């Protein structure tokens, strides 16, 4: 077992594979792994409910949206990610004031979105939705969708202490838009729909430019190139969409307008579609 190489050093015990002995950092080795990806749950629709935009408004905004999710249950498989909202912002404020690093802030904020997701799961429980924490998404989502009629999960991805320090400042870059998108990408979802409180993306701030162009469809490369100062979607989600293998678009819709979610699920042109 403990064979030695010519230079007298102990030899590693390899399992034969295409990547055996290769450096996984080598650019040519990496490029050689390009291959088609299979969609694990191609009928899945990922619906992301914004924290500040929907949840923090309470029942007047949330309940009509949940009713619309229930109405669509018979026609569409839906999993619902939820954002943290203002409590996530508040714990950033306190945590930053205390000097806590980005990874600590990410761990803390994830509990705020977990709370919101748990509330949504309670409100949808009677319609057969279950709340799944990250380990159960990994192990049980397909089984749950076979048995239950939908699932609710924490939009913030489980990066926790391992969250990346961002290029500027300390705010965790992988927020709940990103986490919900990544669930769509890894399972090869049919659609990823971000439900917010704006109609979509405008070419400039509509509050200051009343005649501004509304964007119904835009490629992710062009959207990034436009460098709009604020967007109703996290910049990291756009970067990841640009590298998508399966979930090649994200639709942003206004969840305060009844019928928008149904139209988005039916593939109609509502809100803004960002595509790869």
């Amino acid at each position: 077992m403990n064979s030695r190489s010519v230079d007298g050093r102990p030899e590693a015990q390899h399992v034969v594979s295409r990547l055996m002995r290769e450096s996984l950092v080598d650019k040519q080795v990496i490029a050689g792994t390009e291959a088609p990806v299979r969609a694990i749950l191609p009928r899945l629709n990922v619906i992301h409910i914004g924290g500040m935009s929907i949840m923090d408004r309470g029942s007047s905004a949330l309940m009509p949206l949940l009713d619309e999710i229930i109405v669509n249950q018979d026609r569409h498989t839906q999993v619902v990610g939820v954002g943290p909202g203002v409590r996530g912002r508040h714990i950033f404020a306190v945590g930053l004031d205390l000097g806590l690093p980005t990874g600590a802030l990410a761990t803390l904020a994830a509990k705020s979105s977990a709370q919101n997701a748990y509330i949504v799961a309670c409100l949808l429980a009677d319609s057969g939705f279950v709340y799944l924490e990250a380990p159960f998404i990994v192990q049980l989502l397909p089984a749950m969708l076979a048995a239950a009629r939908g699932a609710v999960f924490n939009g913030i991805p489980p990066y926790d202490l391992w969250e990346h320090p961002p290029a500027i400042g300390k705010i965790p870059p992988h927020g709940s838009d990103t986490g919900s998108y990544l669930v769509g990408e890894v399972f090869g979802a049919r659609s990823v729909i971000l439900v917010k409180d704006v109609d979509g993306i405008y070419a400039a701030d509509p509050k200051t430019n009343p005649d501004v162009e509304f964007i119904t469809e835009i490629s992710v490369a062009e959207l990034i190139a436009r460098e709009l100062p604020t967007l109703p979607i996290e910049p990291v989600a756009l970067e990841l969409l640009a590298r998508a293998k399966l979930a090649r678009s994200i639709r942003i819709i206004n969840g305060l307008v009844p019928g928008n979610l149904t139209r988005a699920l039916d593939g109609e042109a509502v809100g803004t579609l960002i595509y790869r």
Partner: protein
Amino acid sequence: MQSADNSMLTELGKRLVGESLSDATLQRATEDTPDFVILPWVNVVKIGGQSIMDRGRSAVMPLIDEIVDNLSRHKMILGTGAGTRARHIYSLAIDLGMPVGVLTVLGTAVAWQNAQMLQYLLAKHGIAFLEPEGFPSLPHYLMERGAVICQGMPPYKLWQENPEIGRIPPQRTDTGCFLIAEVFGARKMIYVKDEDGLYTADPKKDPAAQHIARVSVQELLARDQNDLVVERAVLDLMLTARHIREIQFVNGLKPGQLSAALAGEPVGTVIFNAAPKGAVASTAR
């Protein structure tokens, strides 16, 4: 829209609860907050998978002895790499069309196996193996026993980002260990591999390759080498890290190198951040 009662918030706090987090001026304002260091005395030591663990007893046991020897002097978080079984399952899973998130779940199991093996070997010294959920207990174990073991993969699982090219999960055990060091503000980040550090080419393939004792991350990125001693994600994250200014690579097959690195000696290769502390990274996102 309901919002928190603003009366107790700082000026920055008021902006955080009211404005878009993607606003660059708001992000920049968070730069001025203090940097509290959670575990300034801890050392993160990554034990390579293919480079150390896969070699078995002849490589692992001397390193175990060296770790035990340092327990009374240095507090260590020992993270493990994955190695050849990960290469096998990545090959298999890519062939079967599995996405990067699934590959990450699979690769994590290999790093976990190596961590569990390491823990069996160190168990009689009272060393525990903590998974990410157990990290709040980590300071206690470090204070009591001097070291803890964790598996090196970050807990991203299905939420792993796609790489720009290819299908290999881009953030693996080098990255996971680096981010542990960064979030805790560790004293040192030491990678234990099977070479004396960086060379101008792969010394396993090119006998004319020359050793590099010290190099800046900026220079290394500018060289755009085909191969590297460490995951590219680590180099990118070094540019944005607030605590970790340098990382060190030592040869775990040479007795004494880990001890020397823990003692602060410049063995192996050091990759350092040449930008002044607090400078905004330009090349990273």
